């Protein structure tokens, strides 16, 4: 509504009479504000913010229990209590443990590894929609947020792993060289989770309702992933269609859980793993990590808007 101006805009008018703004902008090297950077530039920006990503994750983690009297003890106590509840229900009440040797380590490993994926997905769903204030106040590559939330979950898992090692030793599982396999298994799972969180972050930013739906999807996913029962034992002797078998075995959550059990529990043998398990694990991680990142980046300029 330039005609509503009382004074005919004194500072702007005299020097550049009616020059096309785009031309003027180009002449002085101005760029469109809030445009999406190219993919390599985006990766570069993200790398520059790596310290923010880690600092934000650690800050979130430590602020979580800062009001509690026991403080950071809850980092370890919460997963332990979780495992205790599952043991009571599935081990004692329902007696799933009968077929599985070392059932407690088996169960606790499953619960911890599954929780890592579950909470990463949940945190990812809310990463943008729950941090709108931050997104609207500061300029940074938005992928920092979902990645940072996943990193927080990874840190949480590392606390749980400490508890897990204690449980393993208590239940007489001897330490072995195969424990080193935890590192590649966790790296792959972290990549997979982050990719998934990035996808969910974009969807959750557009449709916040997804955060209401996710708990149900995740619970369903948990029950088919063999967190409390052994897929291998359950399937043996049953005549299921081949496709169901393949789907159950290709389930990324089941693969990462089984890899961790294979690494940690000596009574969990390689024969219980699905075929080509490391290939599957790497494939899922790459597919989810790369695909999720690109999918998230495609909508970079739209986050926190409207």
């Amino acid at each position, binding site marked *: 509504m330039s005609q509503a101006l009382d004074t005919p805009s004194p500072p702007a008018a005299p020097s550049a009479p009616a020059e096309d703004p785009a031309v003027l902008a180009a002449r002085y090297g101005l760029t469109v504000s809030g445009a999406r950077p190219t993919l390599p530039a985006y990766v570069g920006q993200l790398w520059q913010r790596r310290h923010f990503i880690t600092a934000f994750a650690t800050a979130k983690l430590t602020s979580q229990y800062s009001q509690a009297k026991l403080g950071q003890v809850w980092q370890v106590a919460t997963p332990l209590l979780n495992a205790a509840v599952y043991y009571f229900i599935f081990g004692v009440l329902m007696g799933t443990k009968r077929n599985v040797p070392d059932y407690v380590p088996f169960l606790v490993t499953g619960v911890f590894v599954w929780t890592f994926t579950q909470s990463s997905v949940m945190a990812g769903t809310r990463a943008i929609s729950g941090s709108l204030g*931050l997104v609207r106040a500061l300029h940074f590559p938005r992928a920092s947020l979902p990645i940072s939330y996943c990193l927080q979950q990874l840190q949480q898992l590392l606390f749980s792993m400490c508890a897990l090692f204690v449980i393993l030793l208590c239940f007489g599982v001897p330490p072995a060289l195969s424990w080193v396999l935890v590192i590649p298994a966790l790296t792959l799972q972290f990549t997979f989770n982050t990719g998934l969180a990035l996808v969910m972050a974009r969807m959750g930013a557009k449709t916040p309702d997804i955060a209401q739906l996710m708990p149900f999807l995740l619970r369903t996913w948990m029950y088919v992933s063999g967190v409390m029962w052994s897929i291998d034992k359950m399937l043996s002797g049953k005549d299921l269609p081949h496709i169901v078998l393949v789907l159950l075995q290709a389930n990324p959550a089941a693969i990462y859980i089984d890899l961790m059990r294979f690494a940690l529990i000596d009574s969990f043998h390689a024969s219980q793993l699905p075929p080509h398990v490391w290939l599957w694990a790497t494939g899922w991680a790459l597919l989810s990590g790369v695909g999720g990142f690109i999918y998230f980046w495609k909508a970079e300029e739209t986050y926190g808007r409207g």
Partner: protein
Amino acid sequence: MAENAETAEITAERIPTVIVDDVDIVYRVNGTGAGRGTATAALNRILGGRRKAEARAGVRTVHAVRKVSFTAYKGEAIGLIGTNGSGKSTLLKAVAGLLPTENGRIFTHGQPSLLGVNAALMNDLTGERNVHLGGLAMGMSREEVRERYDDIVGFSGINEKGDFITLPMRTYSSGMAARLRFSIAAAKDHDVLLIDEALATGDRSFQKRSEDRIRELRKEAGTVFLVSHNNKSIRDTCDRVLWLERGELRMDGPTDEVLEAYEAFTNPKAGKAEPKKQTKVSVPA
């Protein structure tokens, strides 16, 4: 300050730093009005054409900024004034690239930064950790944060009454927290700096310090935008003022002229009845 800018204008070619070209900004708000409660309305929103559904199912659009155009030059300090809800902060966020434009484009030199880190800080963390977190969130490197840490804490004056910087931020008084936030936000140098009513924080002595710091920032920055309801601080810091009313750019000109018209508009019965006859201004839209 005003002299500086003027001499710069006369001697050197005026270099634009922000060009706002015919910009509209529209907010979409989910679930307002009568539509929200009923399930059919929600269904309508999910099914069916988007625009129609939006209209029916309580997605309301708020046209916050309408067809605003202006060009800001290096060395200018520009005040944005207008009554509450006139679109000042929205325009500022769009210049910062944080809100999308519905129509039109905004060109900027480098990345304009909004002065504010409130959202990045966490109340459960100590002031010390928040200084680090806020600095990193603004894009400073770890070394930069470490270098400026003492300046930031010193400027905020948090430690004047004891060792408060190592306490969680939730234990701070609101004034102390506001001072720390401003100190963190003002620690970085910017090409184009956008300030949203930040001057009103803290006690008188801190306000004085903030104003000095803003003047300093303006010297280093190419261009400063300041949103404020305090006409005095606009007069002290700005040499050009944009007046927004109901999302429209009502007036754009030297500080004194625009402020005079604005004061006549907001307070029409204040004695000296419109020194210049400005009929358009005094008629509310």
